[in-house]
């Protein structure tokens, strides 16, 4: 399991929390600064206005009147939180709620000082000092007046930080849990697959989120792998069958030879038979190697510009005498520009297999039509059509499988790899064989798309490692 520190969900959550905090501070700091400035100015103004009012009393009615005014205000408790002090030049208090002139210069101006307010203790107070003739006047205001507001501001800020952090962490943890549970289900599926059960698939939902998209992609990959593995399994089963049969014949032939020790003439004919058996095995082997070579996609590097009509004409001409022998009319028609990007050797082999196949299944005096036509869009269509018995719909998908031999092919020569090789060649050229009914007969269509040239070059390491693998399979002779 991933440690908490290394969980990507949590890391992300912590990152967002930090980002949120920075944003909060960025928002609060200038606000606080501006607010403090405004409050300070406002207070100074209020204090100045207070001082002005007291100064007016002094100028109008004299110092005694001011003293009485101050006393009256303090007595009537309309001074509020104000600190008032009227002192003479020597600093002796004449009126006010301070016991003596505090540690403030007697020069007029605004000051921020700590004053012992008696019952309230030492407090930071903003004071305004004014000179009135021989007297000094001090008007102050307890700074705590705005304290609740500031407190609330700080509470708010702290609260916001706390909510942000806790919610962020919580979301991080929950996301991590959810993610881990989904990752875990993927992990379990994958480990089931590792242990050989390829039928498992990752759970997917309808949504398009990242994990779901990934799961769907992985499922697609698994489908492909399962199909390939099944193909390999089928092939190995078929190899087992199709190679075993001639090998068994060969073995019994040789064993019998050793046992009976027949006269030389008969022995030699048996040896000839044995060589023919071996040749049959080698043929199957070669066909399989060729198929493996095509499937690996290695030959794409050998794509060149090749005229499909030329290849078809050669193939038709090659098979013409064989067709003639069966009384089959083998027609050929080419139409339009038919140059494609492809592998000439493999295309020739595919064409040859298709015609060979048609020849096998077309009755005597039948007809085979080979056509190469250019299609709109630049693709080229190669078709081989016969008027033989055709293929059942149910069998159409099977005939391109390796080693599959339909009921109709019983008793005909071949190992059942012809159509699958043609199919592999079609696939290599970015296409697939299309089998359709002609009633009677079968039409096999191989369309080479205009952009049959490989879109992505085959991986260099695959090209380097695969021949070695094939060599390993084939090296039994040396």
């Amino acid at each position, binding site marked *: 399991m991933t440690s908490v520190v290394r969980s990507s969900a949590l890391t992300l959550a912590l990152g967002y929390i930090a980002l949120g905090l920075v944003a909060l501070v960025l928002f609060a700091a200038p606000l606080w600064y501006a607010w403090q400035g405004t409050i300070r100015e406002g207070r100074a103004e209020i204090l100045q206005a207070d001082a002005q009012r007291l100064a007016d009393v002094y100028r109008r009615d004299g110092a005694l009147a001011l003293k009485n005014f101050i006393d009256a205000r303090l007595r009537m408790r309309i001074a509020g939180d104000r600190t008032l002090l009227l002192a003479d030049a020597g600093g002796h208090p004449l009126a006010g709620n301070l016991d003596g002139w505090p540690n403030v210069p007697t020069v007029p101006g605004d000051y921020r000082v700590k004053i012992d307010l008696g019952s309230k203790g030492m407090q930071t107070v903003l004071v305004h000092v004014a000179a009135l003739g021989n007297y000094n006047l001090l008007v102050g205001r307890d700074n705590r007046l705005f304290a609740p507001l500031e407190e609330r501001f700080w509470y708010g800020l702290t609260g916001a930080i706390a909510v942000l952090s806790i919610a962020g962490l919580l979301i991080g943890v929950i996301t991590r849990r959810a993610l881990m549970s989904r990752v875990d289900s993927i992990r379990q599926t994958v480990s089931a697959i590792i242990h050989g059960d390829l039928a498992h698939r990752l759970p997917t939902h309808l949504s398009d989120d990242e994990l779901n998209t990934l799961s769907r992609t992985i499922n697609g990959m698994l489908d492909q792998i399962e199909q390939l593995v099944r193909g390999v399994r089928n092939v190995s089963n078929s190899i087992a069958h199709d190679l075993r049969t001639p090998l068994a014949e060969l073995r019994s032939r040789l064993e019998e030879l050793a046992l009976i020790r027949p006269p030389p003439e008969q022995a030699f004919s048996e040896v*000839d038979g044995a*060589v023919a058996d*071996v*040749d049959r095995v*080698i*043929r199957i082997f*070669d*066909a399989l*190697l*060729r198929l493996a*070579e095509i499937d690996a996609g*290695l*030959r794409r*590097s*050998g794509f060149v510009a090749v005229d499909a009509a030329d290849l078809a004409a*050669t193939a038709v*001409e*090659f*098979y013409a*005498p*064989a067709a003639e*022998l069966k009384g089959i009319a083998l027609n050929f028609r080419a139409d339009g520009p038919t140059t494609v990007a492809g592998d000439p*050797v493999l295309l*020739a*082999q595919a064409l*040859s*297999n298709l015609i*060979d196949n048609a*020849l096998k299944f077309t009755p005597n005096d039948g007809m085979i039509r080979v056509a190469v036509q250019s299609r709109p869009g630049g693709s080229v269509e190669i078709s081989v059509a016969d008027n033989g018995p055709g293929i059942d719909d149910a069998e159409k998908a099977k005939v391109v499988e390796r080693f599959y031999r339909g009921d109709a092919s019983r008793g005909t*020569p*071949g*190992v059942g790899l*012809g159509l699958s090789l043609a199919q592999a060649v079609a696939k290599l050229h970015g296409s697939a064989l299309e089998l359709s009914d002609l009633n009677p007969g079968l039409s096999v269509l191989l369309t080479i798309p205009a952009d049959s040239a490989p879109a992505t070059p085959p991986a260099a390491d695959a090209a380097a490692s695969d*021949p070695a693998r*094939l*060599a390993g399979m*084939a*090296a*039994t*002779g*040396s």
Partner: protein
Amino acid sequence: MKILLVEDNERVSQFVIKGLQEAGHTTDHAANGRDGMFLAASEPYDVIVMDRMLPGDIDGLAIIEVLRKAGKRTPILILSALSDVDDRIRGLRSGGDDYLTKPFAFGELLARLDALHRRAQGVNHEIPLTVGNLHMDPMTRKVSRGDRQITLQPREFKLLEYLMRHADQVVTRTMLLENVWDYHFDPQTNVVDVHISKLRQKIDAEFERPLLRTVRNAGYMVTAGE
């Protein structure tokens, strides 16, 4: 012919040496790359049979490349278990003249060695070919047997030309596929035989002595001999 066989597998070597001896050729044998390189460079051979994968640090292709760089033009047939088309191409590019995949039929090897040897002696594509009373003029593309003109399709002409250029030699089906049709794969069926029998109809049918003969388990031969 004097032949050098560079092959490490003892069984295959014995089989090839014995076969070549029976066919009237003398064979030197090297079981590793070093000896092979030494013999190939120092002795005059008519043709060399080179296994591709050899024990030791020198493989067949490397030997061929060295020989070619040293100016040796001896025809070389590469014998290999690597059957990929690309392997074949690589082998021929390194300077080999022909490529035969293991396992092989001895007849195929012998026929190819004969063909290589003859090719190395130079082919004049303009000189008329004659086998018995069968004549072919590659320039005018006229074929006649005795005093009778024979009309051949272009491919039939090519087939007969190849057979006549290798007169008195066995030519295998694979050699015909490769050289007449340029088919480097096994078409699985006996189509070559059908072509041959069609050709035979045209050149042999009304004559007492057949020139185009089937060599059992090997291929075909055009010959005026017995």
